[in-house]
């Protein structure tokens, strides 16, 4: 097998090959490290960790030789630079953490390594996970491996987990970890033609992941197949006594029960996700998805989620409010950037002024404003009440249906140089992903087809709390029907040998 072939394997296939002795974990890691070096123009990684990768791969090979192979032993993965990794620079895409080396490891990455996975590096991201384009990173934008048919301009991978999405789409990681606050896994998965799963809030520990909006943040996997995503989820999910919002319930073997059988499942199709301005190709793909599931034996149910349009404005109060407080710790005192000054307040203002980029600054200021005296009830409490209504909409819908199918995003990937001067326009990217985030529900984006421009489009499947198994099942049915090639971005010359 060539190095290129190795990078294009899925996780399940790679585990087979490792088990058969067709190749070693070291060979697998090396192939990826070489591909990463060749693909630096994508800027998908902020930090590559080749030494760790090879050491972990060697340890993996040693375990396998002793017959002690772990569930993900030898699988090379990338990790969003929001997860603290012991002894490895962790920036959150921000200048304010440009030199921060955590003396601790986040729970989900620790679980991933405990399952035998090999760390390739830390991926680029929107600063503090605030963005839908990866354009807000202090370390520069990530370039998607995808191009439109008739437009050579480089495209965004989506965000905020843009580096993690692009790395998997470009076959410079076999899988990766992202975080999703309002769509930061699902939207880039849709833009990048891969699978991205946001688990139920409380399913994966938030301990050691740099916080953006604590009541919304959730870690989850990217992969090139639903099965691979299920395998990664199993490794990172689970109760963590160090996170007060972590839920203590058993972690099923998600991949084991996966067969794409949706017969008898009731699939909700919410009317509110089809606004007049929804692009035709996206509406058509959604209809196609509905048809696929119907053909596969599911029952399609028209539903209403009446507060859908309120989700985004409520999100843009709650998330910035929490962020304004979560980001107060970046003050130049204990770690990170400090801009020297003679006086304390000067030091604070100079440090945070220089350390945060424009989007982070904007959201911290909005959050500060909506929490400040006299505005709290009108904004923050109002938004929390609306959030309760959004959650109620879903709870009522899930009395009638087992899963909900929607488009993941209202557009395909836009060019890097698209105008970004209007923040609201950018926020609208998350219009279909934010409602489930507000309700804490699990959601997945499955690549289902190409836009008129020839760029990937995803469909989103939402489920009941902790019902990731059904979400995965429906996603796999869609995956099967769509037959989408998640490596379609790569030049045909490099296409995998069939």
């Amino acid at each position, binding site marked *: 097998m060539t190095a290129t072939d190795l990078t294009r394997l899925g996780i399940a296939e790679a585990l087979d090959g490792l088990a058969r002795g067709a190749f070693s974990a070291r060979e697998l890691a090396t192939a990826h490290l070489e591909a990463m070096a060749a693909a630096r123009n994508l800027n998908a990684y902020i930090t590559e960790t080749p030494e760790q990768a090879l050491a972990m791969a060697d340890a993996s090979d040693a375990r396998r030789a002793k017959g002690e192979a772990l569930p993900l032993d030898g699988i090379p993965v990338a990790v969003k630079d929001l997860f603290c990794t012991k002894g490895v620079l962790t920036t959150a895409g921000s200048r304010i953490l440009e030199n921060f080396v955590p003396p601790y490891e986040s729970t989900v990455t620790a679980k991933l390594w405990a399952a035998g996975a090999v760390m390739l590096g830390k991926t680029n991201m929107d600063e503090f996970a605030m963005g839908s384009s990866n354009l807000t990173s202090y370390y520069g934008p990530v370039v998607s491996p995808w191009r439109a048919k008739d437009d050579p301009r480089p495209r965004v991978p989506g965000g905020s987990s843009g580096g993690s999405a692009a790395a998997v789409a470009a076959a410079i990681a076999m899988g990766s970890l992202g975080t999703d606050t309002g769509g930061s896994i699902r939207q880039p998965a849709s833009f990048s033609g891969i699978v991205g799963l946001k688990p139920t809030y409380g399913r994966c520990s938030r301990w050691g992941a740099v916080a953006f909006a604590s009541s919304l943040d959730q870690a989850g996997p990217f992969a090139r197949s639903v099965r691979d995503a299920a395998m990664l989820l199993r490794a990172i999910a689970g109760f963590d006594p160090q996170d007060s919002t972590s839920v203590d319930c058993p972690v099923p073997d998600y991949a084991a029960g996966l067969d794409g059988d949706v017969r008898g499942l009731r699939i909700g199709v919410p009317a509110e996700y089809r606004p007049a301005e929804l692009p035709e190709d996206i509406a058509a793909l959604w209809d196609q998805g509905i048809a696929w599931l119907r053909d596969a034996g599911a029952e399609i149910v028209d539903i209403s989620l009446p507060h859908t349009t309120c989700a985004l404005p409520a999100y843009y109060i709650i998330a910035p409010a*929490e962020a304004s407080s979560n980001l107060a710790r970046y003050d130049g005192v204990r770690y990170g950037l400090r801009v020297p000054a003679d006086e304390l307040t000067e030091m604070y203002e100079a440090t945070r002024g220089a350390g945060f980029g424009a989007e982070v600054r904007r959201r911290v200021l909005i959050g500060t404003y909506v929490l400040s005296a006299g505005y709290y009830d009108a904004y923050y409490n109002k938004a929390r009440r609306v959030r309760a209504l959004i959650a109620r909409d879903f709870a009522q819908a899930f009395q009638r249906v087992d899963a909900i199918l929607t488009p993941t995003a209202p557009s395909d990937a836009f060019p890097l140089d698209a105008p970004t001067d209007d923040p609201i326009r950018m926020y609208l990217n998350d219009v279909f992903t934010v409602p489930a985030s507000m309700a804490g529900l699990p959601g997945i984006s499955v690549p289902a087809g190409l836009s008129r421009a020839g760029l990937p489009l995803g469909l989103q499947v939402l489920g009941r709390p902790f019902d990731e198994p059904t979400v995965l099942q429906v996603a796999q049915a869609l995956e099967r029907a769509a037959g989408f090639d998640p490596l379609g971005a790569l030049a045909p010359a490099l296409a995998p040998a069939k």
Partner: protein
Amino acid sequence: MLIRGETGDWEMVLGLEVHAQVTSQAKLFSGASTAFGGEPNTQVSLIDAAMPGMLPVINEMCVRQAVLTGLGLNARINLTSVFDRKNYFYPDLPQGYQISQYTQPIVGAGVITIDLPDGSTKPVRIARLHLEQDAGKSLHDQDPHRTFIDLNRAGVALMEIVSEPDMRSPDEAAAYVTKLRAILRYLGTCDGNMEQGNLRADVNVSVRRPGEPFGTRCEIKNVNSIRFIRQAIEYEARRQIEILEDGGTVEQETRLFDARKGETRSMRSKEEAHDYRYFPDPDLLPLVLDPDWVEELRRSLPELPDAKRERFMRDFGLSAYDASVLVAEKETAAYYESLIDGGRRDPKLAANWVISELYGRLNRTGTPIEQSPVGAGALGELLDLIADGTITARTAKDVFDTMIETGRSAAAIVEEKGLKQITDTAAIEAAIAAVLDANPDKIADYRAGNEKLMGWFVGQVMRATGGKANPKLLNETLREKLKG
């Protein structure tokens, strides 16, 4: 209490916010130690240092202590309470916010009874009690250009106990803190150590004409002794009266008490544009208490000072004063109860010995009662020697001095120094005879009707016997001999 001003009488209105450090091994939201006096930054977890991605998990002991305290303050326990973030920047506040409780505290309204110097009592209402994190320590005097930060204290659990503005004099404020501290110490929920800052008060002071609405108040921050609380109130009330009598208005502000000058002064820098932006901490969920568990705690409450005082008066016949003194400190009450051994020893005699003899000697050396060189058991043995007639009460005081000095047992000292009471009639008669023989003129005087000389004769015989003569026997025999 009214204060005479230039233009008439004024009344002060006082409310206190007491910060009491919760007695626990570990911090409120982290597993770092709360021990006092550790090397700088050694009792700091990554949570206390607010490292990115660190999350709080609440310590069950701190919850228990807060509920126990609420029960001890006769307060309502809120079965659901919420932790909020209070946002402000300060280098000893690593998170950039303090986790506290704002709109839904764990304990609601309660009341305690304070004891005033004139023997009267007064109820003071408690508005609320909530749990919150302490900040770290800023050291401003180590370097001319820099402030040093030690986070050992950061994250230690505090109970903020807020009173209603029910107090009207420094005496009442002092009595309130004294009683509150006693209750906390009885409950074991705060050690009450004011020197270490484990109990400190913010004092709200305003003045008004009697019967008029409340005036504008000033808050004096972080006063850490009862004496300073009195001084701060007196200074601040006088300051406000002077302003008002000069036709000015009191500005609502935060002030600092300068113990050296005995003054309060404005803390303008702390004042500027505070807007704490409280909101529920999304890292924490609502704290919900099981009502059965609360009832269990209620049943397990120890006897508190007021109840103990009542019992001492009722069961042991002690005076209100003696009982109050004995219950004021948990350790004194424990010492006393151990001393009387379930009423086996004379409670009044024991009370006198603790209050006069033991306190008198401990105060000389500033020794707290729990470190007394003579424990309750040893003092009990001494009282037993008095009770069974082995030694006289007078001898006992000398023996006690020796016990305090040497820590030896009463019996050993009595034995070694031969201090056993003389109950041998012949020996007493001999001593009396010697005194009478030497003083024929005094005998004549006595027999002529100067009966007051009886006391003088007793004293002479006592001196001659080294105080060991049995007083009853001595009196009877002497009276007999003097009759002639």
